[in-house]
């Protein structure tokens, strides 16, 4: 599989580390796996750690946007962390940079959310 997810909970946060490539083919799986996890127990915060994301195209943007809507609808927050330069470039181009909370690393993302709640 060209994508792998490492999922764990940290207090009221659900942390998903995405490793590999996020394109049209791998997006379907990623979407399903995250949605399944979200349906088990709604987290206050969904943290997407993209440190090991080697490639992303607009299909990945669709997954992120979709999860943002899903989490927001249930009163939660979506945050991203550890963006590589090409991923950041894509997010900036799509305008998602403005609506998403983005952190340097997972620790600061979690800290910021704990402070908020």
């Amino acid at each position, binding site marked *: 599989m060209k994508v792998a997810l490492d999922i764990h909970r940290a207090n009221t946060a659900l942390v998903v580390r995405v490793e590999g490539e996020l394109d049209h*083919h791998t997006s379907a799986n990623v979407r399903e796996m995250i949605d399944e996890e979200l349906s088990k127990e709604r987290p206050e915060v969904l943290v997407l750690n993209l440190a090991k994301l080697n490639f992303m195209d*607009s299909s990945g943007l669709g997954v992120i946007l979709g999860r943002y809507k899903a989490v927001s609808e249930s009163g939660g927050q979506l945050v991203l962390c550890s963006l590589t*330069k090409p991923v950041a470039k894509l997010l900036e*181009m799509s305008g998602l940079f403005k609506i998403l909370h983005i952190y340097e690393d997972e620790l600061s993302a979690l800290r910021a959310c704990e402070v908020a709640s």
Partner: protein
Amino acid sequence: MNPEPANNFMEIKIASKSENVSFARVVISAFLAKLDPTLDELNDVKTAVSEAFTNAVIHGYDDADTGNEFVWIKAEISDRTLRLQMRDEGMGIDDINQVREPMYTSKPGLERSGMGFTIIENFMDELTIDSSVGSGTTLTMVKHFAPITQPATLGT
């Protein structure tokens, strides 16, 4: 040693399947290797190819996979310029201006961001779309790669 001007050509026919989107990226990456592109340049082209191939799969052929759907990729390098053509024989585009609008998607139910063409236009230097309903779609993209700078020789 003077860098030799690189001239190269390839043409490949690939089955229109979502699993081949990454294969298309691998093919173009391998083809560009001799140009010694920067990571940014390589990523730009890989992403554009990914978007274009995905468009053929999802839109051109509407996700059909009967064994009769193909995407043709033709690539030509002339000095430091890449000319890349991606063609499908799918349903074609009705309103080309509409599809070039950022965030326009004809498949909102699929969680598509509608950014495909915007990304291609931003990442490549030129994009031409040739399409008509029932006659397939051809995207022609051009990218100019930065010249290779000779490494500075360290003084003794």
